[in-house]
């Protein structure tokens, strides 16, 4: 009996009010359902994304709601957000909850590939468009899946294109690559290696480490023996933090050090690694550090920075910009959609491809729903009165400063 009672409790407990789309009359609100990580290893990345999405919702609701083209009017936006505790298993049940119980109009994934993965097939099976924020994993994008839209980042295997070009342009001959063995980082490592080899550079070290790695001391010793000019570490934020701390504590001074996440979570890295450990480090330059004065949707870069900082003091980072950009993609898709059916919303998102520029750059979608427009420039962290300041250094079209190579 207790088992029966608890199952019913589970059945009833986490349901909330639902809103269904209608083809005949406009709904009272547009519900956006998402999962976020309130704790656990993905919280530092997931929470800023959620803040960005909330900021977009607040902005739209101040105007009376998001404009829905099918009804030619603004409809208030309501957010249903559940905490997945950084667990993919929990995220899976929550996505299902949002689709089947809450019947949300728009389904938005949590941060990163691991927490997006459980939503991919669920969304496809329920014929529900998944607005994938930052899950850039390659298995998600297949020709048969028409129910996914990658909003804020390019597919992970094309991230390192500018980085490889930069290394070739600088004639860096001895390159060491360490990568965490997960989909996100390994796909970058493979692309980087093949691009470098095509440019005549064979990495002197090419080594995968478990994503759970928290100490790079031994690996750095073996890398140092190869006398690399550049050490490139591809990992998640905890990997990058540990790597940079270990580089500094080991007293290593390679000509170039590259990690993935300082460009996305600069203030976090400043507090964890410190200015000395960060200066002259290279990273991916996110669009937070690129100025977009002319946009087709949403706020310009400077307006976004000012208004977001006022709404969420001290919380501005690249991931909050991405969360905001997700809202802009949803906004564009709803504006273009002929109805609130999921296929119409998907078509609405496709119609944005190549025509929408936001604070996150140009939005270009390929036939599989993957984003290909927002190539990430190579950036470097320069010492400044504020600690370190990030500037894009390559390619020249996006550069705001000249690279300092080798690092002093």
């Amino acid at each position, binding site marked *: 009996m207790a088992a029966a009672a608890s199952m019913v409790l589970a059945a009833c407990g*986490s349901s909330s009010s639902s809103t269904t789309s209608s083809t005949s009359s406009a709904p009272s609100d547009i519900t956006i359902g998402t999962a976020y990580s309130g704790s656990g290893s993905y919280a530092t990345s997931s929470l800023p994304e959620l803040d960005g999405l909330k900021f977009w919702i607040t902005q739209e609701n101040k105007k009376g709601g998001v404009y829905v083209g099918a009804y030619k009017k603004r409809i208030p936006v309501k957010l249903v957000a559940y905490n997945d505790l950084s667990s*993919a298993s929990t995220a899976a049940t929550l996505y299902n909850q949002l689709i089947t119980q809450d019947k949300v109009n728009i389904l938005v994934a949590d941060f990163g590939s691991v927490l997006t993965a459980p939503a991919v097939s669920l969304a496809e099976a329920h014929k529900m468009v998944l607005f994938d924020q930052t899950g850039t994993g390659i298995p998600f994008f297949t020709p048969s899946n028409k129910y996914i839209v990658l909003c804020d980042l390019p597919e992970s295997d094309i991230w390192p294109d500018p980085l490889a070009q930069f290394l070739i342009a600088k004639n860096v001959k001895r390159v060491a690559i360490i990568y965490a063995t997960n989909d996100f980082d390994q*796909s970058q490592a493979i692309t980087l290696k093949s691009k470098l080899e095509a440019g005549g550079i064979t990495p002197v070290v090419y080594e995968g480490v478990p994503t759970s790695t928290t100490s790079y001391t031994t690996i750095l010793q073996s890398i140092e023996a190869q006398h690399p000019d550049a050490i490139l570490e591809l990992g998640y934020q905890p990997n990058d933090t540990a790597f940079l701390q270990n580089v500094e504590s080991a007293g290593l001074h390679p000509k170039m050090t590259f990690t993935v996440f300082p460009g996305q979570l600069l203030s976090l890295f400043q507090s964890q690694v410190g200015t000395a450990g960060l200066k002259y480090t290279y990273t991916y330059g996110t669009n937070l550090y690129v100025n977009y004065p002319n946009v087709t949707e949403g706020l310009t870069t400077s307006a976004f920075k000012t208004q977001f900082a006022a709404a969420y003091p001290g919380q501005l980072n690249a991931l909050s910009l991405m969360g905001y950009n997700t809202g802009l993609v949803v906004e564009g898709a709803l504006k273009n959609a002929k109805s609130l059916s999921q296929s119409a919303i998907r078509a609405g998102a496709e119609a944005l491809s190549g025509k929408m520029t936001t604070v996150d750059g140009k939005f270009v979608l390929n036939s599989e729903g993957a984003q290909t427009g927002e190539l990430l420039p190579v950036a470097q962290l320069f010492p400044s009165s504020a600690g370190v300041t990030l500037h894009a250094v390559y390619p020249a079209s996006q550069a705001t400063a000249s690279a300092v190579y080798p690092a002093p």
Partner: protein
Amino acid sequence: MSLSARRRPAVDEETKRPRWRGVVSPGMAVAIPVLVFLVAVHVYSNELLLVDMAIYIALAQGINIIYGFTGYLPFGYFGFFGVGAYVAGYGIVHLGLSGPLAALLGGLGGVVVGAVMLPLFRLKGAYFALTTLAVGEALYAIVSNPSLTSVTNGPYGLNLAAVYSSGWSFGMAVGLAAISILAVVLIKNSRYGMTLRAIRDDPYSASMAGINVARDRFYAWLIAAAIAGVGGAIYGWAISVFYPQDVFDVTVSVFAIVFALFGGIGTIWGPTLGAAVLYAVYNVVGVSNPQYFQLIYGLVIVLLVLFAPRGLAGIARYLHEHRPFVRSST
């Protein structure tokens, strides 16, 4: 002697209970959870939550078989779960198997890995528990190794969306829960169950009494491994897109062990109740109010260990034995 005189008495002479209860009561232990699931899926459309709950019931019963009946606690139980998911994934992607067949193949994968781990039974207590944990982590490292990308797809995970079927995976999960409960019923009420309990209480005395300790314990281990293997396979099939860290996750072991202990190990109903109650609490409180969840979960476990080490089943037994107007059996 007449036919009626040879008929077995309606009351068990040892327990003084009607004999029909020995059949009906265990049957209800299987039938009630199945019926509840079959009803729940019609009133609650989040099938995946029910799939997870059914799988955790099965896993808790698997822990019940190996820990409750033999005393060996495998922290690395998640290793079988992950292997099951990956073997089933391999069957679907490379062999073109259907989901149900792949799930059975996942169970076989669990059995094979369980057989390979047989030498670990040279260890006892915490040493055994921690070594199985290390094996689970090693399996994760092997599966996610980039050098095995052609076989396991390495860190890229698997996409089984082509065979996704929420109805079938739900049915398989409920079936697995039923079979695992049935396995416990059969073991508990059999000579084999008595053998396992004898091994748990004192393996040396059991051996002296003619019990083949290694063989009988090994069978229990393989049954538990098969349950986890099928469970992992169904889980992987149900979510369809997963990475190695999703299925080789120590949380799976922690949940299964806590659920089994909460309900009461060595019993039929205990792990079922433990998994159903705690997984429901996890979803109701944990997701909406994680700050309270951790407090509540922690308090429940502390109180349980302090005041009810035999779990819910122990509490129920205590209440049953101390109910008012209980008839004396003497």
